[in-house]
């Protein structure tokens, strides 16, 4: 397996990278801080990744970095078959409402730029005969909800894109996996009160890697969120308006 990962320095991405490393995958880490990428690369080598784990600069806030990063990973890995994107921005609804500049950055990163990156990755994968594109969205994109109106909107758009991509390109060999985590205890959510169904990055990573292996188009993580979201999707608007979640 030859994998490109964006967001492997922390949280869910770090856990996914370690799981893949322990299976002896070849990997290229893309991210915005070279020193951090290198430290993570050495960690993954010590944990069993095949050969030297390579890195390339790629800032999800700056689409101009995408092509060069993908080309560099492609050259280093001598082709790749899987792309995993976990990088994203998060801020509380309160802050996003109060700080328009932050909101713009978040919408750009999570929606526009992530899709631009996926488009570039898709083309590259298809030109090699296909592969897997696994992108982390969120349960926050399932329904419009008061605590995550803005962040949720960015993820809703991303999920819609990933579904369309899967419908359109699976016949040509491009498998799209859309991951929808519930609350996961990572630094992204540090300081927020953890709900009872909170997952760990390691458990979420296990589900992600299994979904990649099986080519599952949509995966909730932890699994119980599939049930929770099934119910939430059924709730009438009048009820959604009244509840706090």
């Amino acid at each position, binding site marked *: 397996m030859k994998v490109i990962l964006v967001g492997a320095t922390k949280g869910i991405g770090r856990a996914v990278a370690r799981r893949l490393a322990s299976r002896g995958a070849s990997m290229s880490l893309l991210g915005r801080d070279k020193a951090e990428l290198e430290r993570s690369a050495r960690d993954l080598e*010590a*944990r069993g990744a095949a050969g030297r784990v390579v890195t390339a600069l790629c800032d999800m806030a700056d689409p101009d970095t995408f092509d060069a990063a993908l080309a560099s990973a492609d050259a280093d890995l001598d082709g790749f078959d899987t792309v995993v994107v976990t990088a994203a*921005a998060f801020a509380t609804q309160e802050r996003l409402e109060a700080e328009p500049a932050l909101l713009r950055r978040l919408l750009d990163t999570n929606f526009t730029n992530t899709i631009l990156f996926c488009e570039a990755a898709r083309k590259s994968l298809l030109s090699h005969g296909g592969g897997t594109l696994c992108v982390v969205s969120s349960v926050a994109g399932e329904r419009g909800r008061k605590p995550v109106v803005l962040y949720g909107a960015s993820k809703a758009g991303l999920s819609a894109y990933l579904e369309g991509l899967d419908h359109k390109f699976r016949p040509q060999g491009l498998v799209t996996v859309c991951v929808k985590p519930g609350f996961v205890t990572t*630094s992204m959510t*540090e300081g927020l009160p953890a709900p009872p169904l909170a997952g760990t990055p390691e458990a979420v990573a296990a589900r992600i890697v299994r979904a990649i292996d099986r080519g599952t188009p949509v995966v909730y993580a932890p699994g119980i969120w599939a049930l929770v979201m099934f119910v939430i999707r059924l709730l009438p608007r009048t009820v959604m308006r009244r509840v706090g979640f």
Partner: protein
Amino acid sequence: MTAKPLARRLPGSRSPSPDTPPLTSTLSGWGRAPVVPGVEIRDEDLRALTKDIPLVRGLGRAYGDAALPAPGDVAIAGSTRADRILSFDPTTGILRAEAGLSLDTICDLFLPRGFFTPITPGTRFVTLGGMVACDVHGKNHHVDGTFGRHVGALTVRTGTGQIVTCSPDRHADLFWATIGGMGLTGAVLDVTVRLTPIPSPWIFEERECMSDIDTFVTALKGAQATWPMTAGWIDCLSGGRSMGRGVILRGRWATAAEAPGPFPGGYRRPSVPFDFPEFALSRPTIRLFNDVFYLKHRRGSRRVVHPYTFFYPLDAIGRWTRMYGTRGFTQYQCVLPEAAGPDAPRRFLTALTSRGGASFLCVIKDCGAEGQGLLSFPRPGISIALDIPMRDHTQALIDALNEQVLREGGRIYLAKDALSRAEHYRAMDPRIGHFLDVRRHWDPDGRIRSAQSARLFGW
């Protein structure tokens, strides 16, 4: 999200303003007592985190108040997400890793490759930083000393905020004060330690019943020359002629020929599902448990076992501390020096039982030479560790035990302590003055403090 300012995520600060909402979250150590207001903040970037929050907590296995914020402080930095391996050289065994890397992960990754930590405490759910801060010891103390002896270098953020690399040759004062320094000289950011090559990942062990404490101590000493690992459990409830009866454990790494197979990973652990009521841990139930344990080992045994069975019997049960109920417990560990003579353990057990102190099996171990860490716990003699449920009389019992240890010229282990009085602790160890001088030098404003340091040192 590196740009996220940490201050924004702090629910409070050292001097909360009048409009800071009252803190509702609490923290405690492994013994679940004391419980103090506080919040642990974790991040992969321990460097950034410790700029604002100088005191660090690892996996929270210190039993008492060592990894709790001092009164008036709120936040403590959690290191567990700073867990990357920075380098490993299989030709030398030298591992450099971030301080939050757990021993559990080190076992998982390196046992199958023929390496093990040079020193292990009785649980693998500790971090490298915690092993340094407590200068942990294990069943091989009589041969290999404490963890600090095997550490080559540390990167530390000191109280003034500077990041310093120290080693036995560079800033040696900071290095040896940090080894066993309970995190008070600076936040350990990364650790360089030499792992030990092993012939197989399995252990050959021997268990034998000992009829009383004197036989036990003699057997421990007798095993020193031939066995690299020894320890034992004693029944602290039996009195008279069978006082201190128990089971001695001797072990060594199994040879490749003795090993039953490759290292089997994935160890599933049952967990204690709820807090036991207080009566569950009364004298009669403890006596029953101790009797059954002793009888089970009557014939002794010799066998090859999984290393976790040998090193980490309690790790096999998740959240076992719930057995002690919601009030929690304290662990008391002391070392009685050789100079106190061979009867010191018997005198200690008498002091314990005469005050009605009941503990599940106590752990006993003979210690070798003292380490160079300025507050390193072990010294030549006999170490005894007991779990004591928190009850109304527990403080009085700890006071009495400390007085007994003082009379014998011994000392206690800070990683376990929650209740010792400053005057007792400070009278136990002549090295404390030197330690505090070094601490003051690297942290002149006294920024780094814990609930334990406030209790024992006043800052």
